[in-house]
């Protein structure tokens, strides 16, 4: 069942806030300069000297702020950040980590969303003896308002360490450091007051993540937010109750620009595309050529980039050499276009994606734990989609069914495809091999035909062959 548009609950920070303005602004910059955390941290301090913003500086700020909050408004020790920095310093010094990884912590009914972390130096650093991570499923395209952010910051300062990571690589808001007894109250507040769910962790479907899509981008070839939301809601069981061989990630890019890098970061990558031709406004092309419209939406201005040269910057850089400009007219051999998006990025008013849009599906990207990092493989070059996305769900379920059956424990989808081979995989999910799937034509001389693939089939048997060719 498709989930209809659901109006996001409008939070009112004034009703939900825990801290007063005075408590939130409880230290001065002068105090910060003379503030020292509980432990000596010379190596950490060194990280503050570079040109970039430092998380050490942020942590010290948060530590001072925490020390000055009223004790009755902190459910964890005021020293939690001091101890965090103390252990970090020790790890830098020794070249060894001191986090114990994993455990049985979680919230009732969920097998994901909370990751157990414990210090193995609990005597020295009691504030972080328990330092669990909570993953919160981010809203589509990470649209927040300040009421939401302030409410979650207050909640985390009250029931956690106050340290956050916005966002983790899966996309979630990552709340770093709380104790086991705070998990259920945090979950209650998130779900009941903020209508916000936990994200995925462990052998689950991870929190699906999408680009900004049609909310702001003219290139989006499908509604990334809607597809992301529909699949998130449809697969709640897979998100919260682990039964996969390992993690599984969906990511949704509205066009081949790939703003969420789904091709590199997800087991099942959805990339918007078109199957007709790139739309060309020849007048606008000439306006770019005559430098009447700045290239790249004005991004290449302010320095000596020189005049726009369509031959050098567009035609010669086309990876498939499918473009031609005769001085008046730009032509594109669209059959050869591999959707690199360079020309569209450079001349957005002259070139636009086609109008017959849909998406491509790619499988198997992963980070380099085993066999090195792997990009996803194009498997479905084009799929027309519309809500309720039944064709997408059908494909998802075929893939899961096969992977759950054939995948080994802790084997990502991409590793399984590598092990069994792409022909076996596409056969299992009911897709015919097509030229776009072939990565390197003629690199493998062995083609094994099946009888049903050959018109007329064949009548010979292996026994008959062996009668003439002994082993």
């Amino acid at each position, binding site marked *: 069942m498709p989930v209809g548009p659901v109006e996001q609950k409008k939070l009112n920070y004034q009703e939900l806030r825990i801290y007063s303005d005075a408590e939130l602004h409880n230290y001065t910059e002068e105090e910060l300069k003379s503030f020292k955390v509980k432990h000596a941290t010379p190596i950490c301090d060194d990280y503050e000297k570079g040109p970039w913003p430092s998380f050490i500086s942020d942590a010290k700020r948060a530590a001072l702020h925490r020390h000055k909050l009223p004790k009755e408004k902190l459910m964890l020790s005021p020293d939690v950040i001091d101890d965090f920095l103390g252990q970090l310093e020790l790890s830098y010094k020794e070249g060894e980590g001191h986090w114990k990884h*994993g455990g049985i912590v979680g919230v009732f009914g969920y097998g994901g969303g909370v990751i157990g972390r414990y210090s193995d130096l609990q005597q020295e650093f009691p504030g972080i003896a328990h330092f669990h991570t909570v993953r919160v499923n981010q809203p589509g395209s990470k649209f927040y308002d300040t009421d939401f952010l302030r409410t979650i910051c207050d909640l985390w300062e009250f029931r956690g360490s106050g340290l956050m990571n916005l966002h983790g690589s899966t996309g979630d808001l990552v709340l770093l450091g709380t104790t086991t007894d705070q998990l259920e109250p945090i979950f209650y507040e998130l779900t009941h007051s903020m209508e916000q769910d936990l994200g995925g962790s462990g*052998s689950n479907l991870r929190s699906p993540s999408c680009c900004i899509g049609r909310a702001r981008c003219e290139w989006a070839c499908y509604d990334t937010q809607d597809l992301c939301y529909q699949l998130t809601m449809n697969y709640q069981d897979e998100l919260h109750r*682990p039964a996969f061989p390992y993690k599984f990630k969906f990511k949704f890019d509205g066009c081949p620009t790939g703003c969420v890098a789904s091709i590199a970061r997800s087991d099942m990558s959805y990339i918007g595309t078109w199957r007709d031709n790139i739309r060309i406004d020849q007048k606008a092309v000439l306006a770019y050529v005559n430098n009447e419209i700045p290239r790249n939406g004005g991004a290449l201005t302010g320095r000596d980039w020189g005049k726009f040269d369509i031959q050098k910057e567009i035609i010669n850089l086309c990876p498939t050499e499918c473009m031609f400009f005769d001085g008046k007219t730009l032509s594109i051999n669209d059959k050869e276009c591999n959707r690199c998006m360079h020309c569209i990025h450079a001349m957005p008013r002259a070139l636009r994606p086609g109008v017959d849009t849909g998406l491509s599906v790619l499988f198997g990207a992963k980070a380099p734990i085993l066999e090195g990092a792997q990009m996803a493989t194009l498997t479905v070059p084009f799929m027309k989609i519309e809500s309720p996305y039944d064709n997408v769900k059908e494909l998802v379920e075929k893939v899961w069914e096969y992977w759950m059956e054939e995948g080994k424990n802790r084997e990502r989808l991409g590793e399984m495809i590598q092990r069994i081979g792409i022909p076996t995989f596409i056969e299992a999910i009911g897709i015919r091999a097509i030229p776009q799937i072939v990565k390197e034509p003629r690199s493998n001389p062995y083609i094994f035909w099946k009888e049903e693939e050959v018109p007329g089939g064949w009548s010979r048997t292996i026994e008959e062959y062996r009668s003439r060719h002994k082993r």
Partner: protein
Amino acid sequence: MATTADLKKIILEFAESYKKSKFYFNDMVHEVQKTVPDAKQRDIKKASTELVNEGVLIFFSTGSTTMYGLKGRGITNDE
């Protein structure tokens, strides 16, 4: 066709007798399917979820992988 109660019983026997205190979902599925060959993964998942909700089984997660275990066997307390 095995009922959820039958599946829960097989899962419990497996969890009690498995050589390790924690096991993967797939290990549990293969064990159940030895006894009930037509048992579907989804039904096994439903049965194991019920056992988790009843506090008999527990999830053990490293953050990247999740395993199941029998409460009371091996590490099952917050430490």
